[in-house]
């Protein structure tokens, strides 16, 4: 028996992230422009970084309580109330995690196991499917449609539900499409979900990056709050990806169990990051506004650019991604991305890396400078013209 034979089949069966494919290629290229990176190009605002540094200088290098410093949980509670009208008790209903990613993992581990099904709308962040499979549960893909601007429809949910369904993942504002869900959109799916024993895992990491209006959470519907785990974090809004800090909010009975996994698996979130996060919530808002304004301008430039080139792009109102339709080029997503990278040195991510139904689209992020965006659009225009000729 080789070591590979000894690995659990459900781990082996889980494919690695399709996004990584072009990693080595682009690293060796000169003058390549990456529209592939799913993280802010801004450094963490200085006031936040400085709090982290200051905490280290004071020697605050010990574990925190498992759920996270109570001061941080209190700030998170205030943030959730102030921003989204959601009340959570900092002592029992909030858990500080190692990024939103850990929160996704432990929520799935708490609610899904072998024989269970989890509805995973696609295209979506690659970790949902992977983490579901690691639990031994089966991800059931729900195909989001461009014609609905990738907003989830009640009948789509109904057609995915079986007696094995334990949870559904909602992820708006969405990676990779940039789609958002507004109040009326949620109202329609709440009709379907309200009387079902299905946990809603609402990944709202991009909640602050909403260019249309105020972010809406499904947990704002009173009948949904108890069975919704809201996941959020600091990576996207506060440009804190490398700090690895996020959080989950939900019913105390759920949090108590999730905390156990968190406790045994990683003890607590990085202490330095927790101090920085407190500062982020207390004083980071003005810097967030600046970054959001900047993203919004770049977003308009990119959407305008793709539409001019003739790659139809619905207006993405959230996150920092455009998801143009490239079918008019006659290329598959993979062909498009590979040729664009080799011929024009612009990296985009094929839509099918986020689920089979992402075929025919590519993800391009505007979390990069305007100069890069303009240059990339020029190169893409040249490329598309050549392909069509």
């Amino acid at each position: 028996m080789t070591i590979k034979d000894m690995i659990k089949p459900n781990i082996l069966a889980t494919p690695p992230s399709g996004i990584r494919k072009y990693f080595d290629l682009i690293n060796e290229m000169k003058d390549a422009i990456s529209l592939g990176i799913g993280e802010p190009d801004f450094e963490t605002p200085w006031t936040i970084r400085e709090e982290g540094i200051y905490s280290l200088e004071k020697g605050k290098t010990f574990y925190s309580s498992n759920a996270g410093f109570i001061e941080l949980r209190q700030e998170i509670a205030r943030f959730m109330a102030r921003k989204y009208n959601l009340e959570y008790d900092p002592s029992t209903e909030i858990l500080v995690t190692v990024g939103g990613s850990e929160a996704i993992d432990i929520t799935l581990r708490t609610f899904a196991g072998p024989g269970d099904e989890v509805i995973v709308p696609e295209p979506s962040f690659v970790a949902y499917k992977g983490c579901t499979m690691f639990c031994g549960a089966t991800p059931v893909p729900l195909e989001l449609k461009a014609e609905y601007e990738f907003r989830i429809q009640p009948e789509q949910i109904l057609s995915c539900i079986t007696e094995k369904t334990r949870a559904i993942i909602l992820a708006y504002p969405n990676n990779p499409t940039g789609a958002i869900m507004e109040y009326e959109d949620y109202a329609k799916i709440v009709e379907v979900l309200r009387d079902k024993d299905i946990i809603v895992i609402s990944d709202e990491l991009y909640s602050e990056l909403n260019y249309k209006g105020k972010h809406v959470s499904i947990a704002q519907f009173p009948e949904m709050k108890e069975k919704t785990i809201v996941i959020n974090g600091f990576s996207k809004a506060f440009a804190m990806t490398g700090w690895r800090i996020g959080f989950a909010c939900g019913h105390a009975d759920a949090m108590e169990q999730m905390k156990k996994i968190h406790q045994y698996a990683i003890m607590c979130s990085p202490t330095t990051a927790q101090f920085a996060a407190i500062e982020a919530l207390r004083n980071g808002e003005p810097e967030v506004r600046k970054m959001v304004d900047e993203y919004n301008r770049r977003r308009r430039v990119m959407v305008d650019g793709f539409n001019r080139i003739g790659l139809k792009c619905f207006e993405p109102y959230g996150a920092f991604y455009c998801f143009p339709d490239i079918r008019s080029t006659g290329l598959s997503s993979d062909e498009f991305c590979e040729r664009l990278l080799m011929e024009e040195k612009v990296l985009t991510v094929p839509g099918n890396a986020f689920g089979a139904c992402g075929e025919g689209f590519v993800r391009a992020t505007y979390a990069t400078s305007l100069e890069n965006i303009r240059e990339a659009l020029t190169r893409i225009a040249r490329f598309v013209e050549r392909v069509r000729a």
Partner: protein
Amino acid sequence: MQQEILDILQKNSRISDEELAVMLGTDAATVRAAIKEMEDKGIITGYKTLIDWEKAQEEVVVAYIEVRVTPQRGQGFDKVAERIYQYPQVTACCLMSGGFDLFVVVEGKTMKEVALFVAEKLATIDSVLSTSTHFVLKKYKENGVIFNRPRKDEREAVVL
């Protein structure tokens, strides 16, 4: 929209009306009209370029000068400030609170040139009581721009 246009122009005054329009989700004519209006109102007073003169190999000496003056009857500090800021060597001049009255920025080609300007022109103005000259040795940040800090994208090309 006015505020947003100003925000963008302050960082990049070379941007075209068309580019601005796309960034703001409007059309170029609207942007042009808004800019014209702000120019007419004196909200936009000019367009300039931020230059790191040291890199351009041009020797530029900058001095920040604290000036104490006797305010003149009926005209306060404005009259003496006017006498000072008319000099082309003076690139900035402000009335200050605190231990001195006028804060004057003077630029010249050499230290001697600046020192002589202060001694011969500034200090000799009737109502000027005293001057205190501070030469700039190194500029770290000006107008919100950090010098000598090439921003390299250090993100991993692709993460997830």
